[in-house]
């Protein structure tokens, strides 16, 4: 029973496989989007072959672009950034690191994975139904997403499937969260206190706690939105609407309430993506500088406070939403406060390196890249966290650059580090170090080349979620920037093949790894 296995290692690998599939798919979608942005009039036979309705004659329609964008965001946030670092590596290594024989509930663990897989299938099914995939973005704000097909293509069955997929994902994540928390609380090896756990375990622990509460709220939001669509309720739909020249009979709801529910989940979700990475990076930096993590306790406390503060800052996604302006002030102060533990972590990472003897393995490269990206992506939060300044940047490419750097690319660098670091335990062989370093340098360069220029499109005021920029005078000036970014994105996409090759090739042909090749102190490397 390798398919419905209840072994945490197998399930961990299954999650990683699912995330790999999703990340390849999500990346391809983004590359197609980047192409359309700079060559909106191009006719591509391949597009027509793939989407006969969405790209008649090979020229992509705006609705196809927007549905690709929605799917890219959903796939990346949920099926890559939430599954790989937490459910993937967490499942595999958490029990090993705390000396447990397995997760607390192995069957629940298996169910959680298969619910996630079902959720992914449901999401992908949206591509193939009438009207295509939804185009309301990964945030799915009603009324656009709440009224059914009348608001546009993809808003029929496609949107229903999307919500169903998210609801399933919530259920799966809740199961996983229960499993992680129960394992950490109950199954730590005798004598291992909470403050004896490696920081990776702290990362998974806090992430699971965040999931337990954040997904519960998203689940409620998803249920209500689904009721609005299918049962004719009007939780999020106000009265007096005329959509597509038809008077709507609903009344009394408020669209802003959905945004509150969504971001009550949505902001902690950012930390779900990055906290396991933070834990891992602390470990990798410490192992390869030959020192203990500087300020272990402060690091653990910083993880907990980031997780906690992460729940009180969701309003900074809603500064321009029509939310009470007084709430904005409170959310703003709290938002900048969440920068403090993040800065503390950065200082501690630097202090961990300080005075060490740095061994530049591939994993170490990714870890150092993570720190650099974390700084670059993080500090723009100081701009966006101020409501007065956010007013200009909200929904521009500045925001796109900010969150891709910090929750997208930085988290993925942590995943790369995890692969290189733990591959010997997972497959008994090394990932090829030389290929890994080449991949690192090209990726690091590519990431800066793609995302740093996008900030400047934001300075011009370039709104995001536009299929093309032909309509506006002021956007003509950013076209050279976008052309450059698109080409950099192709470069970046292409160099990922190096990693994929390395990953599959090394499973069979990599150098055989001895026990504890990195000289690490944590439990998973011990032979017992």
């Amino acid at each position, binding site marked *: 029973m390798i398919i419905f296995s209840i072994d945490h290692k197998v399930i961990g690998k299954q999650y990683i496989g699912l995330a790999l599939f999703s990340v390849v798919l999500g990346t391809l979608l983004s590359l197609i989007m980047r192409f359309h942005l700079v060559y909106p009039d191009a006719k591509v036979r391949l597009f027509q072959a793939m989407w006969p309705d969405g790209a008649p004659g090979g020229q992509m329609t705006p609705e196809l672009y927007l549905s690709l964008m929605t799917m890219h965001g959903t796939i990346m946030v949920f099926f890559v950034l939430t599954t790989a670092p937490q459910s993937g590596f967490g499942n595999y290594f958490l029990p090993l690191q705390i000396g447990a024989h397995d997760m*607390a509930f192995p069957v629940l663990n298996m169910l959680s994975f298969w619910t996630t897989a079902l959720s992914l299938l449901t999401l992908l099914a949206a591509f193939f139904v009438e009207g295509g995939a939804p185009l309301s973005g990964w945030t799915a704000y009603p009324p656009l997403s709440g009224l059914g097909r009348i608001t546009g293509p993809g808003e029929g069955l496609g949107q229903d499937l999307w919500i169903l997929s998210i609801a399933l994902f919530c259920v799966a994540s809740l199961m996983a969260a229960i499993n992680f928390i129960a394992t950490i609380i*109950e199954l730590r090896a005798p004598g291992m206190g909470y403050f004896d756990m490696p920081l990776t375990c702290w990362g998974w622990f806090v992430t699971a706690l965040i999931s337990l509460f954040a997904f519960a709220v998203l689940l409620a939001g998803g249920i209500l939105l689904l009721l609005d669509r299918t049962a004719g309720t009007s939780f999020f739909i106000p009265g007096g609407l005329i959509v597509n020249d038809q008077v709507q009979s609903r009344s009394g709801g408020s669209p802003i309430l959905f945004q509150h529910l969504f971001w009550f989940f949505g902001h902690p979700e950012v930390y779900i993506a990055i906290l396991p990475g933070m834990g891992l990076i602390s470990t990798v930096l410490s192992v390869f500088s030959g020192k203990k993590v500087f300020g272990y306790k402060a690091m653990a406390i910083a993880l907990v406070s980031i997780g906690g503060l992460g729940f009180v800052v969701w309003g900074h996604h809603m500064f321009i939403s029509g939310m009470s302006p007084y709430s904005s002030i409170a959310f703003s102060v709290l938002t900048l406060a969440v920068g403090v533990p993040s800065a503390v972590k950065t200082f501690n990472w630097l202090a961990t390196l300080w005075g060490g003897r740095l061994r530049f393995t591939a994993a170490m490269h990714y870890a150092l890249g993570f720190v650099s990206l974390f700084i670059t992506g993080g500090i723009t939060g100081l701009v966006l966290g101020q409501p007065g300044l956010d007013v200009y940047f909200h929904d521009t490419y500045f925001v796109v650059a900010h969150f891709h750097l910090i929750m997208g690319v930085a988290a993925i660098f942590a995943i790369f580090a995890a692969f290189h670091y733990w591959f010997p335990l997972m497959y008994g062989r090394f990932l090829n170090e030389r290929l890994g370093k080449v991949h690192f340098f090209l990726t690091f360069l590519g990431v800066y080349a793609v995302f740093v220029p996008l900030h400047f499109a934001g300075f011009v005021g370039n709104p995001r979620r536009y299929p093309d920029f032909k309509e506006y005078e002021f956007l003509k000036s950013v076209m050279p920037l976008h052309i450059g970014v698109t080409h950099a994105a192709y470069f970046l996409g292409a160099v990922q093949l190096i990693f994929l090759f390395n990953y599959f090739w090394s499973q069979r042909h990599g150098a055989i790894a001895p026990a504890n090749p990195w000289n690490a102190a944590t439990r998973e490397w011990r032979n017992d």
Partner: protein
Amino acid sequence: MNALKNPPGVKTTGMWLFVLSDLLTFATLLVIYTALRIANPDWPRPFTLSPAIVYATIMTVVLLASSLTMVWAVAAMAEDDRKNTVKWLLATIAGGIAFIALHLTEWRHLVLEDKITASTGLFGAVFFGVTGLHMLHVACGAVYLSILTAGVARGKFSAEDIETGGLYWHFVDLVWMFIFPLVYLMAVKP
């Protein structure tokens, strides 16, 4: 594989975690209800004291009674008295089914006679949304307890398994303790 057994207490911890998370889901629904009600001062209050509230009170007492039998089932299992455990579990399931039956009768009444459905306005949406989700939990609980009952009768399951099932059942009851006053009593005709 799972050769080693978990220490005692893991299952109840897991169930407590589920309960906490699901409580937050229900709390979210109730908070949305509150926000919508604040935004709509003309919120309808369709319930009469008799028969609607009397009926809902009976439903509440039935659900509470099933919690009491559940407590006894857990206590019996703790003493390894499987016969009584099965008896009290069956009583609990009966209570749950009675609750669902009463509830469906009430729904039928609302839909057919008061012409309130989920799509007739925010009151109907909240009422059917919240009570529907709760009823789904009761139904799942009935199935869950049926599995436990069948297992206990055949000598399977430990006291902790029953305790865990009990946690779930009491949680469903606990949620109703908020739904009854907020959804029913706060919607009595002025």
